[in-house]
C-alpha cells in the first residue's frame, strides 16, 4: 500500500485519465457515426429512395381486399352466348344454371346483375350496360372498330380504363371487364366462400344448427355413409381449399423439422465425444471432427438442399436430410463444448467403483450434459420448423411449397392468407410445445439458465 502511495504521480494519472476520456469520447461519437454512415451507404446501394416508385400499391390493395373477401364472377362468353356464375371464376365454384344466387336473374335474352348501392349491370344482346345511381348509364358496345364506351361524362373518369380491345370499370359497387370474347362482372362479398363445403356438396349453405341436427339424424343423405362422416369427407376433400392437402403439407413441414433435428442430435452425440479433449486424447481425431463440424455448418442448409435435391429429388426427405446435415455440425459443436465442461469428480467416483467406459458415460456424463442437450434440441426443433418452411419452398415440399405456388399464381390471395395463418399457428404451436417439454424435462429454472 505504501509503495503505491509513494509511486502516485498526479500528472501521470491525469494523462491516463485524459487518454481514457478521449477514447470514451471517440467510441461514443465514433460508433454511432460509423453506424449512421453505414446505414446511409446501404440506403443508397439498395435504392430505398426509388422503392416508392417501384412498389405496386395496387397489388397491396388486392392482397388486403382478397385476404378477407371473395368475388363472384358473372361471365357472358360471347362466342357461345352462354352466361355462367362462378365463385372466383373457378370451375369448382360454378353455380348450376338452375341455382343462381338471387342477385343474378334472366330477363328475356338479357342477364341482370344487382350490385351494391342499387347499381345494376346488364348483359343485353346489343350492349353491356352498367347503371350507377349517382353517375348515370354506361354503355359498352362492340363495333367494327373495337369496343366503344358511351358515358354520360366526357372525358371518361379515371376508374374507367378503355381501349379498343378491352374496357375495365372499377367501382366500389363492383368491377366490370369487357373484351371481345367475354363480358364479366365481379361482385365482392366478405368472408372466405366455400371454406367448409363446395357447391356440389349437399351440406353447402346450411347453418351450423342444421348441420348439427343432420349430423345426429339417422336419415342418411348419402347412402352407405353416416352424415357426420360424409360431412368430414366433404370438408377434407373440399376441391377449392384442399384442406386435406394443406394438412399433409403442414405435417410434412413438421416432419422435416422433427427428423432433421432428432437425426442430427443422434449423429452429433457420439461425434461430440470425439471432438472433446477430455474423452479423445488423439489430437488428429479431435481436429478432424471439429473441421467436419465447421464444414457441415459452413456449407449451409441452402447448398445442402440443392445438392441433396439433385440426388433424391424434391420432397420432405431431402429437406430432412439437409436440416440433419447442417445441424449435425451445430449440435456437434454445442455438445462437445458441453462434454468438455463436465465435472471430472463424478466420473472419477464411478471409476473408483470399477465402472467401465460405457457405464462412466451413462452415469457420469449423460446426467450432466442432458439438460444442455435437451434444451438445445428442443430449441432447434422449434427454430427448424421455421427453416423447414423456407427449405420446403426451395426443395418443393410442405407448406412452403404451397405458399410459394399460391403467391406466384397471384390469383387466390385468400388461400395465401389461409396458408400464412396456418404457418403462424404451426410455428406458435411448436414454440409452445418445445417450451412446455423443456419445462417438463429439465425444469423451468434450469431451462432458462441454459440460454
Amino acid at each position, binding site marked *: 500500500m505504501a509503495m503505491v502511495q509513494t509511486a502516485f504521480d498526479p500528472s501521470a494519472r491525469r494523462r491516463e485519465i485524459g487518454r481514457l476520456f478521449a477514447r470514451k469520447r471517440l467510441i461514443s461519437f465514433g460508433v454511432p457515426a460509423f453506424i449512421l454512415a453505414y446505414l446511409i451507404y446501404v440506403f443508397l446501394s439498395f435504392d430505398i429512395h426509388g422503392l416508392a416508385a417501384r412498389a405496386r400499391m395496387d397489388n397491396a390493395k388486392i392482397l388486403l381486399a382478397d385476404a378477407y373477401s371473395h368475388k363472384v364472377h358473372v361471365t357472358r362468353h360471347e362466342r357461345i352466348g352462354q352466361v355462367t356464375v362462378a365463385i372466383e371464376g373457378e370451375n369448382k365454384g360454378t353455380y348450376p344454371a338452375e341455382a343462381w344466387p338471387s342477385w343474378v336473374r334472366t330477363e328475356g335474352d338479357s342477364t341482370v346483375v344487382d350490385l351494391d348501392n342499387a347499381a345494376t349491370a346488364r348483359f343485353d344482346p346489343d350492349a353491356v350496360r352498367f347503371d350507377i345511381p349517382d353517375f348515370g348509364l354506361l354503355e359498352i358496345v362492340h363495333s367494327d372498330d373495337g369496343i366503344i364506351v358511351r358515358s354520360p361524362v366526357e372525358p371518361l373518369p379515371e376508374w374507367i380504363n378503355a381501349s379498343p380491345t378491352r374496357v375495365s370499370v372499377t367501382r366500389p359497387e363492383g368491377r366490370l371487364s369487357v373484351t371481345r370474347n367475354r363480358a364479366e362482372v365481379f361482385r365482392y362479398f366478405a368472408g372466405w366462400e366455400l371454406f367448409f363445403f363446395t357447391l356440389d356438396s349437399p351440406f353447402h349453405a346450411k347453418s351450423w344448427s342444421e348441420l348439427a341436427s343432420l349430423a345426429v339424424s339417422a336419415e342418411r343423405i348419402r347412402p352407405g355413409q353416416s352424415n357426420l362422416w360424409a360431412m368430414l369427407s366433404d370438408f377434407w376433400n373440399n376441391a377449392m381449399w384442399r384442406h386435406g392437402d394443406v394438412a399433409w403439407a403442414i405435417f410434412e413441414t413438421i416432419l422435416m423439422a422433427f427428423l432433421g433435428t*432428432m437425426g442430427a442430435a443422434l449423429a452429433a452425440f457420439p461425434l461430440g465425444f470425439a471432438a472433446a479433449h477430455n474423452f479423445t486424447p488423439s489430437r488428429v481425431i479431435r481436429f478432424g471432427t471439429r473441421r467436419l463440424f465447421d464444414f457441415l455448418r459452413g456449407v449451409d*442448409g441452402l447448398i445442402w438442399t440443392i445438392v441433396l435435391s439433385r440426388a433424391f429429388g424434391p420432397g420432405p426427405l431431402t429437406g*430432412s436430410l439437409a436440416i440433419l446435415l447442417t445441424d449435425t455440425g451445430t449440435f456437434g459443436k454445442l455438445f462437445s463444448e458441453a462434454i468438455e465442461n463436465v465435472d471430472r469428480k463424478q466420473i472419477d467416483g464411478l471409476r473408483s467403483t470399477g465402472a467401465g467406459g460405457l457405464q462412466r458415460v451413462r452415469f457420469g456424463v449423460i446426467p450432466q450434459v442432458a439438460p444442455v442437450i435437451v434444451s438445445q434440441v428442443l430449441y432447434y426443433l422449434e427454430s427448424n420448423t421455421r427453416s423447414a418452411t*423456407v427449405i420446403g*419452398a426451395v426443395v418443393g*415440399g410442405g407448406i412452403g411449397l404451397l405458399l410459394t405456388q399460391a403467391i406466384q399464381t397471384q390469383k387466390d390471395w385468400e388461400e395465401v392468407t389461409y396458408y400464412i395463418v396456418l404457418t403462424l399457428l404451426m410455428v406458435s404451436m411448436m414454440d409452445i410445445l418445445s417450451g412446455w417439454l423443456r419445462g417438463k424435462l429439465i425444469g423451468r429454472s434450469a431451462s432458462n439458465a441454459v440460454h
Partner: protein
Amino acid sequence: MTGPATSALGSLKADYLALVRRRRMYSGLITVLFVSVLAAGFSVADARNAGGFWQGLPKIFDFPAELISEAIDKSADLPANLLLYLPALIETVNIAAVSTLVGALLAIVLSLLSTRGLARWPRLIPFFRRAMDVARAVPEIVIALVLIFVMGGGPVPALIAITFHSAGALGKLFSEVNENADLKPVEGLASVGASWLQRMWLGVIPQVAPNYISYALLRFEINVRASAILGFVGAGGIGAELRVAISWGTGRYDAAAAIFILLFLTIVAIDQLSSYYRNRLVGAH
C-alpha cells in the same frame, strides 16, 4: 430382533429393485417408441419424396462431381467468376448486417419495455411480450414473399423480413439478459431525478451490452444464412445468382462453383469471427 429387521431390509431392497426395473422398463419403452417414430417418420418422408433414399444414395456425389469437374475445366475463369459474384455476396451480407443492426436496436427497446422493474409502462409489459412473440413466430419467408409481390424483387423485402424476425428473436434473449441486470444503478439514477431514457442508457445498457453484442453476433451469423436462402426464393443477393447458375439446361456450373466457394468462405469466416468475439465478450465476465 434381527429377524424383522432383515425382512424389512429385504422388502426395502425388493421394492427398490422393483422401482429400478419399472424405471428401466419405462425408459426402454420410451426409447423403443422414439426410435419407431423416427423410423416411421423417415419411411413416410421417403415415400412422399420424388426420388427414394436408396435410389438416390449412389447418385449423391454426381452433382458435386459434375460441378467440380466443370469448375476444374474452366479453372482459368474462377478468379473472374469470384470477382463477378462479389457484389451479390456483399449485398447478401449487407442485408444480414443491416437487419441485425436495426433488429437489435428494436429488440433493445422492446426488451427494456417488457422487463419487470425496467419497463416504462409496466401495464403494457404483456403487450410488448406478445408483440415479440408474434415477430419471432413469423417465418421470414412469409413476409419476404408477400413483400416481393408488393415491392418487386430486390434486397428490401428480405431486409424487412429478417429485421422483423430478428427484433422478436433478439428481444426475447435481451429481456432474459435484462432480468439479470443489477437494479441498484437504476435506483441510484432515479434518486437523482434521471429520466427513463437516462436510467436505461446509463444504468442498464453498460451492464448488459457485452451480452447484447454477443447475441447480436450470433444472430448476424444466422441472418447471413437466412439472407442467402431468401435470395434463392426471390429476394436479391447471392441466392438469386445461385438460382440462375444451377437452373437446369442453362446452368453454368463453373459459376455455381464460384458462388458455393464464396458462400462457404463467408459463412465460415463469419462463424469463426463471431464465436471468437463472443468468447471474448462473455469470457471477460
